[in-house]
């Protein structure tokens, strides 16, 4: 009850207080409210521990994948010689590193880092210019091509709509109201009708008995 009162109070008067606004915006713009800070050690330590193998693992992983390390634990069917095809192209760690420098993803990554350095560090005036000139492109990129919004609207929203429909329409209206309470209503209605038969008048009962006897006699003498 107390919580309800609180909510009502919030709804009535204090819509624009700082607290309320903060909550509203927090979901997407956290950074605007809290100054960036270094992560605590529980985050840093695992990152450091993960950084070590991510530098070194490449030197030994070839032996794991293409050598005899797994023995007979992993079976590759002859019809899917994927590992053998990969192994043909793998000539050791150094050639693999050199190969990396000639692949497109590597240069995309470098280009990304370079562009970011250029427009945010060397020419911090550029983002505003770009945004003014190519607003549409910037918006498409910022929206991540609208995939998130589509997923929110179509999958999340659709599932909620469907769930709501099944709940209100299926569970509440059809099952509970129509079938469960409906059968109770039918029984109730039936008994109100039946109750009228029990009128208390002797001549009603006598009449019913006469009809009953007539019916019985008809049945007996027919066969």
């Amino acid at each position: 009850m107390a919580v309800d009162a609180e909510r009502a109070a919030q709804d009535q008067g204090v819509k624009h207080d700082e607290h309320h606004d903060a909550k509203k915006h927090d979901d997407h713009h956290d950074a605007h409210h809290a100054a960036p800070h270094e992560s605590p050690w529980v985050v840093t330590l695992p990152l450091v521990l993960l950084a070590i193998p991510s530098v070194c693992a490449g030197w030994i992983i070839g032996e794991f994948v293409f050598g005899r390390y797994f023995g007979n634990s992993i079976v590759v069917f002859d019809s899917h010689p994927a590992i053998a095809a990969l192994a043909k192209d793998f000539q050791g760690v150094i050639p693999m590193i050199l190969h990396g420098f000639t692949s497109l993803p590597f240069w995309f990554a470098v280009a990304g880092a370079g562009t970011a350095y250029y427009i945010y560090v060397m020419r911090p005036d550029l983002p505003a210019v770009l945004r003014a000139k190519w607003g549409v492109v910037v918006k498409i990129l910022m929206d991540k091509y609208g995939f998130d919004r589509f997923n929110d609207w179509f999958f999340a929203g659709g599932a909620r709509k469907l769930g709501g429909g099944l709940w209100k329409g299926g569970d509440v209206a059809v099952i509970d109201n129509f079938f469960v309470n409906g059968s109770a209503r039918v029984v109730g209605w039936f008994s109100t009708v039946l109750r009228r038969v029990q009128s208390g008048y002797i001549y009603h009962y006598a009449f019913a008995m006469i009809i009953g006897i007539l019916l019985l006699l008809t049945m007996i003498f027919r066969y």
Partner: protein
Amino acid sequence: MYGLPLLSLSIWVPIVFGVAVLATGSDRNATAARLLALIGAIAGFLVTLPLYTGFNSAGSGFQYVELAPWIASFNVNYHLGIDGLSLLLILLNSFTTVLVVVAGWEIITQKVAQYMAAFLFLSGLMNGVFCALDALLFYVFFEATLIPMFIIIGVWGGPNRIYASVKFFLYTLLGSLLSLIALIYLYNTAEGSFSLLDFYQLPLGLGAQILIFFAFFMAFAVKVPMWPVHTWLPDAHVEAPTGGSVVLAAIMLKLGGYGFLRLSLPIVPDASQYLAGFVIFLSLVAVVYIGLVALVQTDMKKLIAYSSISHMGFVTLGIFIFNAQGMEGAIIQMISHGFVSGALFLCVGVLYDRMHSRQIADYGGVVNRMPVFAALFMLFAMANSGLPGTSGFVGEFTVIMGAMKANFWYAFLAASTLIFGAAYTLWMYKRVIFGAVANHHVAELQDINLREFLVLGALAAAVIMMGVWPDPFAEVLHTSVNDLLTHVSQSKLPVE
């Protein structure tokens, strides 16, 4: 083992302690009632432990059998015995009873002795259902469990408790009346025996089998509950006190799944196979339909209630695909769901005791005030979504594997629960636990105390243990499940 009638002890120790707790009388002796109830619950749990340690996993048939005449003129016997399936459910039941007694410790202040006694009675009666090998004894225990639960919801429940408890009672009673008629028919056909073991050997024509199947189905489908006879459960859960919800979700629903395995399948195997498609259809509807309905709930207890129905759909699916993986998965899922749903209802109870609201909208940012609670709640939410490493994964994964063997589309639809489960559970978790502190009531929250930590911690340990090392649970099942499947594969239709 030890020459003791262990099954009788597991039934009657809690009930005798229940009587003793009732004898403490009014709330002036509340502390005595609580202590006595705790001793009774622990004693009840301890007597079930030798059942596990002395259980012969390789042994066929029923173990720890006890047989004594009860109503001699009708050849009704006090006939008890368990296999691997009943063993796990008895352990789960007795374990849960200890937790609900502790969970209600300071929370229940009115009619304490009656509250605690109701749970002890319920515990003993449900153990009776899991042990009974005489059909009438089974029926008596099965129906008797309604009484304490009716009282628990009707006396200690929320504002709409009378409506909920009557709905619960009528629904489940109506369902099981038909099964009594079926049992009496079987009694006559078996020439005056109520023994389940006699029923198992009884040849029956397909027409009779189908009628008996539906009579049993009405009883057990309501209990599970299966779509579309499930609507009593959300109401009952919402109105029940926390302990009532825990026992209802953790054990009572399993009476339905257990009934299918103990009665429907072995007594009418041909009809069970003939109608398997029908039951699988209803189970898959439960998984998908109820998953979607759970998504839009605004009341936490209702959400978990719907989640229970969806998860129990997995149980009936696993049972009726008729392979070992499906069936073992279904049983594991029952046990896991006992831990996870019980824990989730306790978590909601912890919040409710502090805020007196179950509405998701009233919460937000709870993690800022209750970090320990938030961590435990997170584990249970993950387990409810079927995350690997938790018990929720083991059952669901095994059932999906079994379903894949039966039919790709069964597995496909069943697997959708992993998406829906994650969606409704984690979305609720996010709205309740994360974000900014929603209001000054949340700001004043205190983290869980030692008593609450012990209860949730015990369940957390169970969830993780079952998730990473399910063998101790699975190994007692293999023989029972294989025996049942062999039995079911032999037609009982009379030879022309």
